[in-house]
């Protein structure tokens, strides 16, 4: 069974003028079909306003589709009886690290999710310790979240989701507000989680470098999924990506330019080592 499966997903909201009168409807998502296999790493790319965050919020039943259906682990998100099940199955990490930490102490924040699920006290402590360790934040368990860096806060937020033992984590631009160091910390934490816990990861982002290891990449534009494939397939279509106002990684860009000038390089080079290797092979 698919972890997340959607058919003709539509989300509309009313457009209002300054007095609050409805002057029309906007389609943030327009007929999206998406399939995510259990245990896979899926990235959704898109520039601002492409509908990628709206799509992410559907996976956690924060938003309910106005048309079509989305199933999370076989559960229809429109069914109110399944609401809490859906939210436990697909945990969500948001963009702003400050606005998603509820506790005044790191470990209490991580315990917040399990507390809501009604997990027994001893089990909560076990889960908190376990999930803090898996994001490398165990030594900060007694610290105040206000004293942490952005990357650390975001790792705490991830631990808070892991403690609920979800089958799937949706990360909605988790690195958008972080500096390069914080970004690296968060992405490494996510990778480690994938290895250790075998959770499905859905990463919403506009940083190309973060999606290189994904199994599948979806590119969204204006509420539609406009490109879909492995990172290599996607990044070999440099000109098409530019139409959707997306940048490709620098290495890919360089390789593409060299190829256009007549060098015999393969399409879709993602890493620096690959480019070096390909260039050496030319001689």
């Amino acid at each position: 069974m698919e972890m997340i499966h959607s058919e003709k997903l539509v989300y509309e909201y009313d457009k209002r003028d300054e007095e609050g009168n409805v002057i029309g409807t906007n389609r943030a998502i327009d007929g999206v079909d998406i399939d995510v296999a259990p245990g896979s790493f899926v990235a959704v790319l898109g520039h601002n306003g492409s509908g990628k965050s709206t799509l992410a919020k559907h996976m956690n039943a924060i938003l309910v589709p106005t048309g079509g259906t989305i199933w999370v682990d076989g559960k229809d998100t429109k069914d109110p009886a399944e609401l809490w099940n859906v939210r436990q199955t697909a945990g969500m990490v948001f963009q702003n690290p400050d606005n998603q930490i509820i506790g005044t102490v790191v470990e209490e924040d991580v315990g917040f999710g399990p507390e809501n699920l009604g997990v027994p006290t001893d089990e909560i402590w076990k889960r908190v310790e376990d999930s803090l360790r898996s994001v490398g934040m165990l030594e900060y368990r007694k610290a105040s979240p206000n004293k942490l860096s952005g990357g650390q806060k975001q790792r705490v937020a991830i631990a808070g989701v892991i403690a609920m033992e979800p089958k799937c984590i949706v990360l909605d631009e988790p690195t958008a507000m972080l500096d390069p160091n914080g970004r690296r910390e968060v992405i490494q934490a996510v990778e480690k989680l994938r290895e250790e816990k075998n959770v499905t990861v859905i990463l919403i982002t506009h940083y190309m470098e973060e999606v290189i290891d994904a199994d599948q990449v979806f590119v969204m534009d204006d509420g539609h999924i406009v490109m879909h494939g492995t990172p290599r397939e996607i990044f070999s279509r440099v000109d098409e990506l530019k139409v959707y106002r997306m940048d490709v990684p620098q290495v890919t860009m360089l390789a593409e330019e060299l190829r256009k000038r007549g060098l015999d390089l393969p399409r879709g080079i993602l890493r620096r080592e690959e480019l070096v290797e390909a260039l050496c092979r030319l001689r």
Partner: protein
Amino acid sequence: MIRDITIGQYYPAESPIHRLDPRVKIVCTLLFLISLFIQNSLLGYVIATLFLGCVIHFSKVPVKYIAKGLKPIVILLLFTVVMNLLLTRGGETLVHFGIITITENGLRTSVFMAIRLIYLVAGSSIMTFTTTPNGLTDGLEKLLHPLNRLNVPVHEVAMIMSIALRFIPILLEETDKIMKAQMARGADFESGNIIQRAKAMIPILVPLFISAFRRANDLAMAMEARCYHGGEGRTKMKPLRYKGRDKMAYIFTLIYIVVIFMVGRFVPFKLWVF
């Protein structure tokens, strides 16, 4: 400068008082405050002083630190003392000078009122110094739990309190940032009379409120995403359970209350030395 404000100050230390259940501390503080008002004899104050002294000693909070907490009430204290001194009539007249008349009763009341006020603040600050804000909210939630039957949203109120505590430093930082941003554009917060200064605060308050609402919105979404659905069916990571020492503290306080009540009631003569 704005970060100097510390609300719900907590003095971190390892002491028997720190380890007590927050509920014990809340109830005992309340009892202590009541005890200050049910008696009015010198012996009573001696007993109250002994009790407070013991608690302060065990809490390992320096007396200096507590004295610093008294600063904000100095004006109130002076005002009360002066008023009581001048306006209370009765008993022997001690000083009579123009319109100023100080009587024996006046002196007595003002001294006792001052002691009461100081003990009131010292007693309650011992509670906040030795209990984390979260502990206080948890304790309050549990203590007020019976009010749930009267449809008082106890859990929600406690949750609101703890979230407010979490966001105080964040909003202070934000205020600092907005102030600097407005100052960079030429805003002046330091000159002018009170009304002008108050008006100058508007460009700070408006963006601050907008951002606070935005944060509230984000936070509510994050809480829902983590399955928050009110207090029902919720378990606690750190549940409050009474231990031996908590019972000891209750017994100790009860003995104190009984003694002080008896003194107020049955010691017939007022021990009065002046």
